[in-house]
């Protein structure tokens, strides 16, 4: 049971990471799973430089929107989203 849960969490983390890398090529991405369906995400990307925080977060969210859509979305919530250059 524990293994199954751990496995699922890890694969969603990877999906988040991969999706961000598709949207934000060359970014440095860290995903930290929290409680089930909850994740902390930290993204470092050079192109954030001339953008405000709202835009930075929006770019990240846009990249993972498909993982957050619908009632059975693998990602229920992003507890923490850090963007830096």
């Amino acid at each position, binding site marked *: 049971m524990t293994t199954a849960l751990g496995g699922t969490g890890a694969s969603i983390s990877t999906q988040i990471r991969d999706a961000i890398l598709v949207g934000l090529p060359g970014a440095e991405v860290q995903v930290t799973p929290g409680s089930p369906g909850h994740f902390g995400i930290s993204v470092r990307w050079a192109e954030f430089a001339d953008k405000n*925080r*709202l835009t930075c*977060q929006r770019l990240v*969210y*846009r990249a993972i929107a498909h993982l957050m859509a619908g009632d059975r979305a693998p990602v229920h*919530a992003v507890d*923490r989203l850090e963007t830096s250059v």
Partner: protein
Amino acid sequence: MDEATRQKIDSEVQSHDVVLFMKGTPQAPRCGFSATVAGILDELVGKYKTIDVLSDGKIREAIKEYSDWPTIPQLYIKGQFVGGCDLVREMYENGELHEALGLKADAVELPKIAISPGAASALREALEEATSQEPDGGHHIRVEIGADFQHALSISDKKPRDVAVTAGALTLLFDPASARRASGLSIDYVDGPDGPAFKLENPNEPPRVKSVSVKDLAAKLRENSKLELFDVRSQKERDQAQVAGSKLLDRPAQDYIMTLDKSTPLFFMCHHGQRSQQAAGFFLSHGFSNVYSVSGGIDAWSLEVDSSVPRY
């Protein structure tokens, strides 16, 4: 998103200065992130418009497209999308939210704080220790008071928006939100079961059910055998095990409690501490301000205080 829904959202966002799309209502939020943003707005603005997306499936999906933002809550100020929980909290902490709302971030009155001599010397010691370990850092006592009135003391640097208060020859730092909750705060240093500890009393804290351990209850009963201690279990359970001096909480007992002064300390216990919490909450909602639930209930009593009381 259909045109009618877009127009509906448009008109909400344009016709109110502050609009929060959330899950549930500020009184009964249905998600922690929504509760956080509503709590911040409650503190900063008296009135704001909320839209419960859980009661309107169309808006729930459409708002995500409308703002190009996939999560709820979403805050709009003067027609502009501000962000979700993370951003709102960050802007609240650094003062940008006050600015966006047209409030003066620094309009915080200096709260009056009382520090006992024991607490002052313990705080000074902590400061000296921190300074000796890290002589370069700016060391100040910081007091944090959360929206739930959890208090925390720490040593930290001064931040730009801090409010500094002098008390007991010490300087205490508060972030603006903590400062607003701090007026009349008293800080004491008292002996507890795990050695001396700081004790903070805040008159602004709304009354809530307090927990009392079985050991503390036993001590209180030794001091005062007339303690108002009510057992919320059934008579059948009481026949198996009970604490001497406790009374069955039946209808006459409820009526009796209602005749008492609202500041009378009331203690409730049950088997494990859940039913007593509910009963205590009931009397709290009827205006009693000194309401305790015995944590662990009679089971903990058997284990920690009196092993002659059978467990069941």
